[in-house]
């Protein structure tokens, strides 16, 4: 295990631990507004990371935010990867009209500005629930994955071992799923891990624009939006979720890079 892998795993484990243990350590549940005389208090024994403008426990909100932010990002990447890999595989293996149609589909998907599509979708539908937001982010993320998988599929189609399988009389379907698909897994895994980092940042950005989860459900981006107003008086409101975002995104990036090095030593 390389240093990068280790660092990434340790960071992710630490965040997961906070997400799970946070509620136990927190002074009050994440949704509970307390006496407003206790609002905007710096870290203390009762509230380890202080309180926000409604006197809610920042640690509890950080932990709940970790569940939401990481959960949304993972689910979004899962959706994007599944959809993207199916389309990519088909596009890479189909011939004739289907090939050009699928290639065009991927091109069009890549040509659509993701942020605009997301803004429009969320603005029109109102606040989405946690899984719905994840699915929507995922549904706009497939074209990149599809392009990658299509490229890999095209490359592997002409790889000697695939040609051998074909010569041995394997059906096209068998070749596709038994020989080509496993070959695309490594780059897919690397891209998906790196994609988690992007999805975390994207969700944070949407929440920061006020298009995040329904109240009082916290996400790190939403906490940052609230923190802006109080930056001069209560900087911890900014630093806590920002630290979460930086750690989670760095961890995903480190892991992705490490995976790339071990799974695809020849790639740059």
């Amino acid at each position, binding site marked *: 295990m390389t240093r990068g892998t280790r660092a990434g795993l340790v960071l992710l484990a630490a965040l997961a631990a906070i997400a799970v243990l946070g509620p136990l350590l927190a002074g009050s549940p994440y949704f509970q507004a307390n006496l407003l005389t206790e609002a905007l208090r710096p870290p203390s024994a009762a509230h380890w990371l202080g309180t926000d403008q409604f006197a809610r426990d920042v640690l509890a909100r950080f932990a709940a935010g970790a569940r939401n932010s990481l959960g949304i990002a993972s689910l979004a990447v899962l959706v994007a990867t599944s959809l993207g890999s199916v389309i990519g595989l088909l596009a890479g293996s189909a011939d004739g009209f289907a090939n050009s149609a699928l290639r*065009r589909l991927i*091109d*069009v998907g*890549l*040509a*659509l*500005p*993701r*942020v*605009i*599509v997301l*803004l*429009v*979708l969320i*603005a*029109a*539908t109102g606040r989405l629930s946690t899984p719905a937001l994840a699915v929507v982010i995922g549904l706009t993320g497939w074209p990149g994955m599809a392009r990658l998988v299509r490229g890999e599929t095209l490359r592997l189609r002409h790889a000697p071992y695939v040609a051998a399988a074909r010569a041995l009389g394997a059906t096209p379907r068998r070749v596709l799923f038994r020989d080509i698909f496993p070959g695309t897994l490594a780059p897919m895994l690397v891209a998906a891990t790196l994609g988690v*980092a992007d999805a975390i*940042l994207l969700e*944070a*950005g949407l929440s*920061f*624009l*006020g298009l995040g989860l329904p109240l009082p459900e916290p996400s790190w*981006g939403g906490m*940052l939006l609230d923190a*802006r107003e109080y*930056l*001069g008086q209560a900087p911890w409101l*900014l630093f806590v979720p*920002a630290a979460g*975002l*930086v*750690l*989670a*995104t*760095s961890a995903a*990036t*480190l892991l992705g890079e490490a995976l790339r090095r071990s799974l695809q030593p020849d790639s*740059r």
Partner: protein
Amino acid sequence: MRGWLLRRGADGLFTALLAAVALVALVHALPGDPLAAVLGERTATPEQLSALAARWGTDQPLLTRLSRYFVALAHGDLGFSMTRGVPVGAVLLERLWPTVLLGSLTLLIDFTLGLALGLWAALHPATWRARLLGAFTIIGYAVPSFVAGMVLIWLFGIRLGWLPVAGRSDVLLKMDASAWEIFIDRLRHLILPLTTMVIATIAVPIRQQRAAVQGVMAAPWVRAARARGVSPARVAWRHCWRPALTPIVTLFGLWLPMLVAGAVFIEGLFAWPGLGALIAEATAAHDVPLVVGAGLLLVAAVQIGSLLADLLYRVVDPVQRDQ
């Protein structure tokens, strides 16, 4: 080359057209009263409503609206903004320049400073400075741009008072100010948003460049040169520079739309009157024609960027040219 360019251009145009259809259809098909943006937080009498619906064409079926939109688009008409009551094209034109300015300067810094740092890091892999740079590229990428922006504004704009906190220019600047005064004023207003954009984006070119140069350094001809006793700097200059450029060029083409997307999150912070802020405002107000217009502009930008990348790719990599 010209044949390739024509084919590639037509291909891009076709993709852009399909993407435009998809985008316009998506926006028009979404639920919600399309006149809500015209009305704002008000009510209207039935006569007013039907007059408005007729004027905006929202009383027509979806297909009619779409075909009307594209017929108008073919004549270069993007319609009227619902919240502003002025042509969408005019609004986009007003807001394009500030974003292009911010974006191109970011691009310039990313691809000069970023590439230089990447090259340097590849040539000095074991030093603590390179490790520091490596850590920075990871963290810099991980810090959301708007957090960096908030902190910069608070520190340099409010706490220290060195730089303006928002806007593109000093509204108090005299109308007859000298070119030099205008330049200095614009520059002061640019520093914070530009720094924010660079912090958010420079990590990628640094890492790409470092990886690319490291890859080339491992190539046999470079090792041979090193074995002959050529100095590392000379090797880097003579042998690494050009091959390492290829992946960077690809990145360059994708950069343009990425910068606009990034601008959506930070232009508002700085009250920078660009496309990003406009997109955020327009989507929040459900100004359908304006959102679609901005979206189409981005679709075009993506295609132009990718065409540019392919073109540069062929210029940089002679092998491609022969294919």
